[in-house]
């Protein structure tokens, strides 16, 4: 089910602007990996290269290798659509489809990919909503529009939508930054449960969150404005937060940065 990601020498561009440079890392299966770093250091860009969403942006271009177990995601015979089915994504702002009901939102991934058997769909929808800890709150109003939910519920709806297609890896781009502490807690608990089944990568600006949910943490930084972001170090979360090997990391974590 869950797969390992092996990145080597990855560089990403927006047109001629180099956003991140020469990043290599390994993301372990069935674990939570957190990316931290200052704004603009390329965490989100890097995350988006992991499921080929980067190239959706006009001018987006990638060099280097991303291996999912033994397949190179950027190989010439690889279909980006298939990659995105295998590696799901949750975005910063909750973005349920406004024209669809709660049920249809969760079923969207399957339905838009051509699976339309009703009984199967209902099962998957219930399973995914339960998986996202949302079932009890919405089971009586599955046919209501998804945009009527609260922000935290919408974000969990988006997580349910992402796990409904049974991906191997789940990428989360600051999934809690638009949410209140209670919804954040709900999602952090959910991440703890989901890592039993998925490989999870999460970008966060919240150091405590990284410390709470992740097994390994990667610190990104950039040398200056306009320079590409780089991976400074990556280690067990505990070590990064107690005894990092690079001074920059310690400065950033202790708030002495800049």
């Amino acid at each position: 089910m869950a797969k390992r990601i092996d990145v080597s020498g990855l560089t990403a561009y927006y047109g001629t602007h180099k956003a991140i440079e020469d990043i290599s890392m390994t993301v372990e299966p069935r674990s939570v990996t957190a990316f931290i770093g200052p704004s603009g250091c390329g965490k989100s860009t890097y995350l988006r290269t992991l499921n080929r969403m980067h190239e959706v942006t006009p001018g987006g271009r990638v060099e280097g290798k991303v291996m999912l177990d033994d397949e190179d995601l950027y190989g010439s015979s690889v279909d980006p659509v298939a990659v995105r089915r295998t590696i799901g994504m949750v975005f910063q702002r909750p973005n349920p489809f406004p024209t669809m009901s709660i049920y249809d939102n969760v079923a969207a991934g399957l339905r838009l990919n051509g699976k339309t058997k009703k009984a199967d769909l209902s099962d998957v929808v219930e399973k995914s909503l339960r998986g996202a800890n949302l079932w009890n709150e919405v089971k009586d109003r599955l046919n209501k529009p998804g945009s009527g939910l609260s922000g935290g519920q919408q974000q969990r709806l988006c997580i349910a939508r992402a796990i409904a297609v049974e991906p191997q890896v789940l990428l989360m781009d600051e999934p809690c930054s638009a949410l209140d502490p209670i919804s954040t807690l709900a999602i952090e608990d959910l991440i703890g449960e989901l890592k039993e089944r998925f490989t999870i990568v999460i970008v966060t600006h919240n150091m405590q969150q990284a410390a709470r949910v992740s097994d390994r943490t990667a610190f990104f930084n950039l040398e200056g404005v306009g320079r590409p972001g780089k991976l400074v170090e990556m280690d067990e979360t505990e070590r990064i937060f107690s005894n990092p090997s690079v001074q920059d990391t310690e400065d950033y974590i202790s708030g002495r940065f800049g």
Partner: protein
Amino acid sequence: MSHATTTPAAGGPAPGATPRLSSARLPRWTPWVVALGSVAAGCAAGLAAGLSSKVQWGLIAGLLFVVANFALTARVQGRRQARDRLATSLVWASFVLALIPLLSLLWVTVERGLKVLDGYFLSHSMGVIADAETGGGIYHAIVGTLEQVGLATLMAVPIGLLTAVYLVEYGTGKLAKAVTFFVDVMTGIPSIVAGLFIFSFWIMILGFQPSGFAGALALAILMMPVVVRSTEEMLKLVPNELREASLALGVPKWRTILKVVLPTSVGGITTGVMLAVARVAGETAPVLLLVWGNPLINMNPFEQGQSSLPLYVYQQYAAGQSASIDRAWAAALVLIAFVMVLNLAARGVARWKAPKTGR
């Protein structure tokens, strides 16, 4: 508006330098009273000066309204509020000014159109009735308008929609820029030029006879840029996050466009299409050139002349007999009603299909 801030106007100017939050305010009904007063004063001034034109009365009243509002507010509430009131009264005056021609047009059309408008008029053609005779109807013109506009819509909407999808979702670089430019140019084409183009191409070069279809071709040319522009704007309004959400689920791009982007914007697109239909439904010039008109019912848009409502209005009016002018007004009323129903339908569809919020 809390009660503390609505002290009566009698208080005079606000106490100068004391930093109080409340100050003298005019009651909320003041603008209405000022409006009534200015209308009365405008009429009085008009009568007194012996101005025959009601337009002049109205202009005097409007001017008085704006000036009086400004002066009164400046006197009681101070300069900032006075400027605010000035802007507000200008906006209201312009609104009334814009509304007058619309209402008067509607009024005259209804008044004169209802004279001969009845079931017989709607269900019969002109047949062999001479211009000066009463009777006859517009059934043949309604059929012509529906068929020509319908055919034009069938041709223009798919092409326009796909062009807009190309421009927003796929187009980059020179080709997209060129397409946008030419669509803008097409928006400005006078309808007679579109008619002449089809006339020279379809009738003179390809040798077809004038028919409803030839008219529909010209109408389609007029519709297309409107459809492209409005659809383009609507598609641009769809947040990129929705496209990304769909792509990240492993949905191919074409399916994303079909199942996420278009449904999200379908309300606005429908409105745009309806506006385009409304625009071409009132076109006379290309129909005159290409369809020629026909006093008899011709259900087949591909052979021989047809009539259409705007053409019928033009021909009946040009005939100059009192019976034919009555018929022209009635047909005009039907045309306006037709366009209005279309617009209402568009609004209904837009509201029905709009992304839902509620819980």
